[in-house]
Each structure stands twice: as structure tokens, then as C-alpha cells.
């Protein structure tokens, strides 16, 4: 297999894993103010995220680093074209990380309420912006020989916004299911009820997205030329329905797993549709950024493949270990006792 294709697959995997892992952190962050009825419960929610959020965010940094190393031209153009959107994303990620860490380190209502609001905004904004960015990448960016002709306002087109809403809802459902698994009592029940309430909205938006995609993008072309690939979007739909069925049965862990599969398959569906583009041009296909015209040299790709083959298994091993260490449920009593907790 060509190295560029290996790196395209890896690129897709890094994004998919990132959204699967940070998705529940973003979702829980958007909801902690509403699901947690008092400070104790809010702290429980934040503490379910505490040991893992930073490690989850690193998948984003690695996805960025991998894009830089493997497809430097795409990295350079994407980041400079989407300057303002990425800036807002960056600010949100900075504020979110700091909020988790600082919220519990001060006293007083104002202090806590300010950080709570910060967590809400800085979780919502990335979810929306990632969706808007990927929606626009699916649809292609207006670029030609003269460069880029878009702006932040351009990105907020109907398809971009719809994808943004899809991401927000995916992460909201993902986050509620995570919390229903990781907490006990009323809080867990509330989270489960929220998942059940949000799910129909997610279904409607997902259907609208699949329909609109036919008109706004050329993502389906690859699937029509190789129909066996349709298994991926079908799995996404099946997993989405699985969430509802498993939640109704009270199998919340299963529903969360189903939600993981949904997110991964949604990302894969989009990325398969893009192939071999990383960012298509919607003005002139000759100016699309593909894995072939924007990649690093074979030597660099070879070295990077070696590095990843060596270290990614180790990373995955200790990631699994850490999720096992923190597999239990988080309770109010536990959080109150632990002075290290957030």
C-alpha cells in the first residue's frame, strides 16, 4: 500500500478517536450546569472527566502534528485559511482546560459560577466549530490559483451549520450516556433521561445531514463507485439506532459503546467520501488538496510510520490501563473527601 494511503487512514483514525474520546468530555461540559443540580453534583461531573480529559485532548494535538508531518501543505493552508475559526477553537480549548483545573481551587459562588459558565461556553464552541469546519471540508473550500476566497461568515453556510449542529448533538448524547454510566443515583437517572430526550433530535439532524450531503458535497461519489463501502454509513445508522434500543433496555454501557461506534463511523463516512482529497476545492478540482499533492516525501512518511508503529501500541496500552484504573463510578461523597479532586 502506498505510504500516503497509510497516512490517510491514520489521519482518519486519529480524528475519529479524538472525537470519540473528547466528544463525551465536550458533551458533559455542555451539560454539567443543567444536569448537576448543586455544586456537589457538578463537581462529580467534572471529576468523571478529570483523569481523562487531558489525555483525550492529546489525540487532537497528535492529529494536528500528524497532519503537519505527513501533509504539510494541507496543514499550512487549512490552518491559515480557517484562521479565525481556529483561533476561536483555540481560545475555547485553552479556557476549558484551565476551567477544569481552576474551578475547585477557589472559593465563593462567583468564582464557581464564572468557571461553570466558562466550561459551558468552551465546550459548546469547539463542538460547533469542529462540525462547521468538517462540514465545510466535506463541501470543499473556495480555493483556486489565487488562494482562498472564504471568510468566517462564509464558513457559517447552511451545510456547515447543519454539520455543526450534528456534532453538538452527537457529543451531547455521547456525554449524557457517559455520565449516566459514570455516576449514581439521581444524577445518573437525569443523564439517562436527557439522553432519551436528545436522541430524537439527533436522529432528525442526522437524517437531514445525510440528505443535504447529497446536494452540498460529492461525498457519495466514492460510495457509488464502490458500494461495499456503504457498510460504513450503514454501521453509523445501525449504531445510532442501537443507542436508542440499548438505552431503553437500561444497558447504558452498551448505549455508550454504541455512541462511540456512531461517532467513529460518522467520521469514517465523511473521510471515505473525501478520498483522495484532504480538502477539496469547490471552485476547481485542480486546486483540491489531495493526499498525493500535499504529502511529505516518502522518506519522511516512512520514518513517521515507524515511529507510530512503535509508539502508538504503547500509548493505546496505557490508555486502556488508565481507563481501567478509573473505571468505577464517581460519587458526591468521594469527591468531597478527596482534596486532590477538581
Amino acid at each position, binding site marked *: 500500500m502506498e505510504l500516503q494511503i497509510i497516512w490517510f487512514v491514520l489521519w482518519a483514525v486519529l480524528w475519529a478517536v479524538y472525537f470519540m474520546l473528547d466528544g463525551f468530555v465536550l458533551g458533559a461540559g455542555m451539560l454539567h450546569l443543567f444536569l448537576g443540580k448543586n455544586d456537589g453534583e457538578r463537581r462529580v461531573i467534572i471529576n468523571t472527566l478529570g483523569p481523562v480529559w487531558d489525555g483525550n485532548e492529546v489525540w487532537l494535538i497528535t492529529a494536528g502534528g500528524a497532519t503537519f508531518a505527513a501533509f504539510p501543505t494541507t496543514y499550512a493552508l487549512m490552518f491559515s485559511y480557517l484562521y479565525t475559526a481556529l483561533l476561536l477553537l483555540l481560545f475555547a480549548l485553552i479556557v476549558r482546560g484551565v476551567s477544569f483545573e481552576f474551578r475547585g481551587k*477557589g472559593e465563593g459562588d462567583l468564582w464557581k459560577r464564572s468557571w461553570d459558565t466558562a466550561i459551558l461556553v468552551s465546550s459548546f464552541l469547539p463542538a460547533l466549530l469542529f462540525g462547521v469546519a468538517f462540514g465545510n471540508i466535506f463541501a470543499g473550500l473556495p480555493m483556486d490559483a489565487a488562494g482562498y476566497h472564504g471568510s468566517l461568515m462564509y464558513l457559517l453556510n447552511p451545510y456547515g451549520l447543519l454539520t455543526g449542529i450534528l456534532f453538538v448533538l452527537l457529543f451531547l448524547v455521547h456525554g449524557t450516556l457517559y455520565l449516566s454510566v459514570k455516576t449514581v443515583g439521581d444524577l445518573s437517572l437525569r443523564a439517562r433521561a436527557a439522553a432519551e430526550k436528545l436522541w430524537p433530535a439527533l436522529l432528525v439532524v442526522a437524517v437531514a445531514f445525510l440528505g443535504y450531503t447529497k446536494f452540498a458535497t460529492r461525498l457519495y461519489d466514492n460510495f457509488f463507485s464502490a458500494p461495499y463501502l456503504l457498510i460504513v454509513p450503514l454501521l453509523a445508522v445501525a449504531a445510532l439506532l442501537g443507542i436508542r434500543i440499548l438505552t431503553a433496555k437500561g444497558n447504558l454501557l452498551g448505549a455508550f459503546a454504541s455512541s462511540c461506534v456512531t461517532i467513529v463511523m460518522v467520521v469514517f463516512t465523511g473521510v471515505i467520501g473525501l478520498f483522495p482529497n484532504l480538502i477539496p476545492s469547490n471552485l476547481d478540482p485542480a486546486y483540491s488538496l489531495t493526499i498525493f499533492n500535499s504529502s511529505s516525501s516518502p522518506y519522511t512518511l516512512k520514518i513517521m510510520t515507524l515511529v507510530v508503529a512503535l509508539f502508538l501500541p504503547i500509548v493505546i496500552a496505557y490508555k486502556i490501563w488508565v481507563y481501567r484504573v478509573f473505571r468505577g463510578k464517581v460519587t458526591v461523597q*468521594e469527591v468531597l473527601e478527596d482534596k486532590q479532586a477538581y
Partner: protein
Amino acid sequence: MDVLTLSRLQFAITSMFHFIFVPLTLGLSIMVAYMETRYVTSGNELYLKMAKFWGKLFLINFALGVVTGITLEFQFGMNWAEYSKYVGDIFGAPLAVEATMAFFMESVFIGVWIFGWNKVSKRMHAISIWLVAIATNLSALWILLANGWMQHPVGFVLRNGRAEMVDFLALLTNPYGLLKFGHQIVSGYTVAAFFVMGVSAWHLLRKNRPDFFKTSFRMGASFALVSTLLVAVVGDFHAVEVAKTQPTKFAAMESVWETKRGVGLNLLLIPSELKECNVVEQICIPKMVSLLAFHTPNAEIKGLKDFPKSERPPVTPVFFSFRLMVGLGFLFIFLALVALFLSRRGTLENHPLFLKVMLFALPLPYIANQLGWIVAEMGRQPWIVYGVLKTSDAVSKAISTPQVLGSLIGFTLLYGTLGCIDIFLLTKYARKGPDDDLSAIIKPTRN
């Protein structure tokens, strides 16, 4: 101001802000790991309290270091797209390796350390903080190999309109990058050692918990002496490497205008870029600059006038930053010696004046770190990759002045606010002193 100037200003501000937190993280992680190891091996709870107290300060500092690091990665693409396109083939690799090797390890095990007091064994808990310390220092290695490549590019050819990597091993063994790494990590340890001594001095002056803070101070003093000496030794080798590979930077660091053999070091010197000479030169140590540059007294030093004006870095800031950094470096060695002497004799509290000095010396290593980076980055100008790519050719084409002005203002406001909150929290917890209630941790099980 144009996009180039604003982008440079933004990169300078965001990386200098990031670099307020990184050096302390580099050193304090190791010190906390050492404290916890002492607790695990001796069972002495004093060391556990130390690990917890200094660990809390470590975490407050660590959070901002992590989140502000992402900004730098993003900016390579956002503001320096032409750079990223041109050198991404070789420069992207160390960044990707850094994420895979170091960031994952750091982020996962810091979680174990914060939340795992009752979830993993005592030994595993101590190993976690060691893994964090190793990961942090590994991350410094990769980013400094990347920066070392910008300073002294190796292992590449210009092909297909860009710099392509042909020798990864050359990048890994680039002496410039390795010396920079060595110089940087021990500078970070110096920051941490003076941080621990400074905070301890504050408490000792108030006679708070003398047992706790005397032990902490003494640990800081030992750490400081070793680090400050290493800073000077590695720094000396680093300067030799600079003289060899970046003659314009070295000439600016010492403000040498004419090419000569056996150049002396003027203790008092004021350069004038306008007149292309030094307007003040006093108290000369003969042949000293040549000796420092090449470790031979009669070595020839290339003067700035040998290079066209368009290829010279700004001399005044580079020269003064370098001088001040070196001066501070010597001061640190002296203070570390006195600190170790007094704390070993156990007479620290009889010397309130010295404790006050150590309190006010706390920010100095931070300043020295920033000055070092001013020398490194300003001294490389007008190049972004020395001899290969000019900074002015590296800036993104797709961004506009209002965009960058907006982001610059945004960063300044956001970072300003976060910086204030961080200092507020650090001060608050530093003043509070250690927590004696260890019940939540030492309890064998919890349910």
C-alpha cells in the same frame, strides 16, 4: 503594522507566555517525584506532605503550560503557512513524535497522579509522577531538536521547492539541538530550585513550619547548585556551537564589529548599530571572547561588518539579553552556594537578610530563561531557518492585518487574564502552606 510584524509579535508574546510555565514544570516535576520517592522508600510522612504541597503548586502551573502549548502548534499553520509548507517535511516530524512519545504519556500519568491516590499502589503513584517528569523532559527534547534544526539545519536537501528530510538521524544528533536541550532543562531546574527556595524563604521568615520548609529549602539548594553549575558548563559548550554555526548571532551576542584574532571581552560595552561600532568599551579581559568562542585564545572572530546589513540580527537587544543572562547565571551559582552552605549548617533562620534575598531572587531565573530565548530567536534573525529561509518569506499569504491584529489583541487579553488568575492561585496556595490532613490518602481503601 503589517501581517509579518504582527505575526512575529504574536508568536513572541504567545511563546514567551508559554515559557513562563514550562521551565518550572521541567524542574518541579522532578523535585516532586524525588520527594514522593523519599516518602515511598522511607515511609516518612514529611516527604508525602512535601510532595503534596509542591505538587499542588506544580499542577496550577502545569495547567497553563499545557493549554498554551497548543497555541504554538496552531500558529505554525495559522500565521506561518509558507514556513510550514517549505519545511514541514522535516520540521513536522519532531512535533508529531513529541505528541506521540511525550504528550500522551504526560497527560495520562498526570491524571493518574492527581486522581489516583487511592486507586493505584503507593509505588505506582510515585512511578506516575516520574513518568510525567520524564515525558515533560522528553517533550523538551523533541521541541528543542525542532528548534535546533531552525538554528542549524541538517539532514535535508532542497528539492521539489521545499526542504525535504533525507537523514532523520542527523536531526536527532544535531549537536545544536542537543546542547540547547541540555542548556534548557538545567535552566528549568534552576527555576524550580529557586522557586522552592523562594517560597520556603517566605515561610521561614514568618517562622511557619520550620521543619517542613527547612527540608524543602535544603532540597532546593542542592538541586540549585547542581543545576546552576550545569547551566554554565553546558552554556559554554552551547556558545562554542553558536560561534561555529551561527557567526552572525555570536557576533551580535558579543557585539564584535570587526573581524579579528584574539578578541578581548569588554566588561562595559555599549553597541551602536547606527555607527556600526561600540561607543563604550571599558575594562577589557584580553582574548576572552576568542577563548569563549573556540576555546583557543587567538581564534578569529568574524565581525558583524563582514556580513551585509540585511543579514545581521538586531545587535542591541541580543547583546544586552546575553550579557544579562550570563550575569544572572553567575549570580545563581553564588546564591546556590550560600544557600547550600547555610542550609547544611542548619542556620538559615539566623540570616533573615539572606532569606529575603532568596525570596526576591525567585523571579530572576524566569527572567534569565526569557532572556536566553530572546538571544536564541532574535539572534537568528533575519532568518527563520538559519541560512535557508528568511522570516519575511515564511508568513502566511492568506491572512490579513485586521485578522492578526484581532487575534493578537485576543491573545493578550486572554493570556493577561489567565496569567493574573494563575499568579493569584499560586500565591494563595504557596502562602497557605502544607496540609497536615493526610487521611484521604493514607487510608488503605475507600468506598
